[in-house]
């Protein structure tokens, strides 16, 4: 008995001419066995090899509906997947990050089965391949924000329409789905699987790009940036003020050593105090603007349970 739910599978692909064929056939088969109605949305992120032609030649072998979303230039994974999920119409949507497959096809069915037991987002990640760098990043992020993001690098996830809609309505331009899904506040579960092979995911970002994304995530999803700025300008403000005070005291007690020292020190102290005061105020404004900009809703509710014995 096939599931009646309509599911979409959004697949990211970039220069994968050798893998795409087997992958699509496999995915099509597993979805066909499990679901009555499904669609595959393949996001082709401006592949420069033969990916597009290979996909076209596959069309007759695919039983389900296959939509290919060709991006006009390289958008990278986050935005490409956003476009794909925007187009998907399913009640549940699979997000498949890569056509490099290191899991058994049953995992796709398992994710759905897990999800219908009450989880709006279910991730699957391979056992033991989490990098120390990602661990450090997520530990830090979790520490600095109210998020509790799992440090594993997931390969496939399934999201309910309810959760997806909330994430898609998020207006922010800095998109990091892993965090956004965490942020949507719905129940989440994980499936850990034994990878069938070690695959080198092939870093698609340079170190600089990673640092840039990481700092964006920190700034958007925690207030660490403005907090540091605030703290630093406040400390500097106090420092400048006390130097000014010191200059006045030495002048009054007649301990001036070099002529003109007092005036110079006073000027510096007043100037810097003013500057740091302005910076403190601006940091405060920036964080306020950031908060105003970010969320459609000021709070994120997971569920409203009415408990009553009546």
């Amino acid at each position: 008995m096939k599931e009646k739910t309509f599911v979409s599978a959004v697949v990211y692909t970039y220069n994968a001419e050798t893998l795409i064929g087997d992958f699509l056939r496999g995915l099509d088969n597993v979805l066909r066995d499990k679901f009555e109605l499904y669609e595959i949305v393949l996001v082709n992120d401006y592949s420069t090899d033969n990916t597009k032609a290979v996909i076209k030649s596959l069309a007759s072998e695919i039983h389900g509906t296959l939509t290919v979303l060709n991006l006009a230039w390289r958008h990278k994974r986050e935005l490409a997947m956003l476009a794909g999920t925007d187009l998907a119409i399913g009640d549940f949507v699979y997000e498949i990050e890569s056509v490099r497959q290191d899991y058994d096809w049953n995992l796709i069915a398992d994710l759905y089965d897990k999800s219908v037991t009450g989880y709006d987002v279910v991730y699957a990640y391979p056992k033991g391949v989490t990098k120390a760098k990602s661990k450090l990043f997520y530990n830090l992020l979790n520490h600095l924000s109210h998020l509790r993001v799992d440090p594993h690098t997931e390969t496939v996830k399934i999201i309910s329409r309810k959760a997806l809609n909330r994430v898609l309505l998020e207006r922010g331009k800095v998109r990091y789905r892993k965090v956004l899904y965490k942020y949507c506040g719905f129940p989440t579960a994980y499936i850990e699987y034994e990878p069938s092979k070690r695959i080198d995911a092939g870093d698609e970002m340079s170190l600089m790009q990673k640092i840039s994304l990481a700092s964006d995530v920190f700034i958007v999803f925690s207030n660490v940036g403005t907090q540091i700025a605030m703290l630093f300008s406040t400390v500097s403000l106090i420092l400048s003020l006390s130097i000014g005070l010191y200059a006045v005291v030495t002048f009054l007690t007649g301990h001036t050593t070099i002529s003109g020292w007092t005036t110079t020190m006073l000027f510096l102290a007043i100037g810097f105090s003013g500057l740091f005061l302005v910076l403190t105020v601006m940091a405060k404004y920036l964080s306020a603007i950031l908060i105003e900009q970010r969320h459609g809703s000021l709070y994120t509710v997971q569920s409203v349970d009415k408990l009553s014995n009546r």
Partner: protein
Amino acid sequence: MIDQYNTLIIGAGIYGLYIARELGRLGQKVLLIETDKEAFSRASYINQARVHNGYHYPRSVSTARKSAKYFSRFNDEFAPAINDQFRKVYALSSKFSYTNGIQFQKFCTYSGIKCKAIDPSEYFQPGMIDAAFETEEYAFDAFMIRDMLLRDLSNHDNVLISFETHIHAMQIEGNRYRLTLNNDKLLYADRVINTTYASVNQVLDLFGFEKFKIKYEICEIALCKPNHKLQNVGLTVMDGPFFSVMPFGLDGTFSLTSVTFTPHVTCYDKLPKFDCQSGNPNCSETHLDNCNLCPAKPKSAWGFMYQLARRYLNNEYDFEHTESLYAIKPILLASELDDSRPTVIRQFRSAPDFVSVLSGKINTVYDLSEVIR
């Protein structure tokens, strides 16, 4: 004695019947042949039943203007067959649309058609729609139009309709065609007008003319029953891979169509060749059978179309599937880019005359005035 006609018309769709009636009024001796058992058995019936007022073509002002020009004329002439008792809403999807709300409004102003902004949240889920407009567009009842035309035709003894008939062979003898029909009947005609739609190239091929550059799509029009909330509304989401749910005629039935799921199979050959033809001995590259009655017709894509509509519509607007109609639609390849739907009237030769008419819209039937002489 071989029968002689001034004009032989091929195809008893709206174009064929309309020309027959006009020529009948002029006193010409006309034979109208139709391969199916009844008039309006294919595309004249199996379509969105929309009286186009131009809204559908936001990237082709010329098509829009022409539709708008004929809109009131068509509604006046076929008034009893027109359903204008519903609120027609056009909405622009906020994602993947080629046109946004502001551009659509501008386009309507250029084309001189009504377009009043309304609140999208009345019908659509949050975030899905850029802008929604109340417009002036109606639906027609194809069978009522058919009956009106047939009634008019019955007053003209000089016009004859022959069903289950098609041309087997043709010869030119002097200034006229000598035609052999499938029932071995022979006749002469001074002029042939080809008003077939999906079979247009097959007829041109038979007469030895250059074929149109078209692609063919087997299309499904899903009929459905709206719930009471939807009853008096027609909703069309533009301008890209979206859908339309609106009244289909006058009896309360609605049609659901979608840009991605309505076409099932596409053929890019000059003559229509489909895999499903192996499942029907009466259908081939040279003669198309009626898809709607075909045992090998495609499996309905209702589930997909419905899912797409659900993604957009508020839950209170609902509808259920009743049946699906299938027909082949030819699309001129030149009009792919701007999505225009021109009416092509081409005279292929004179004495004897051969004219072919190809149009994707019912209410541009008035373009035919130049053929009717």
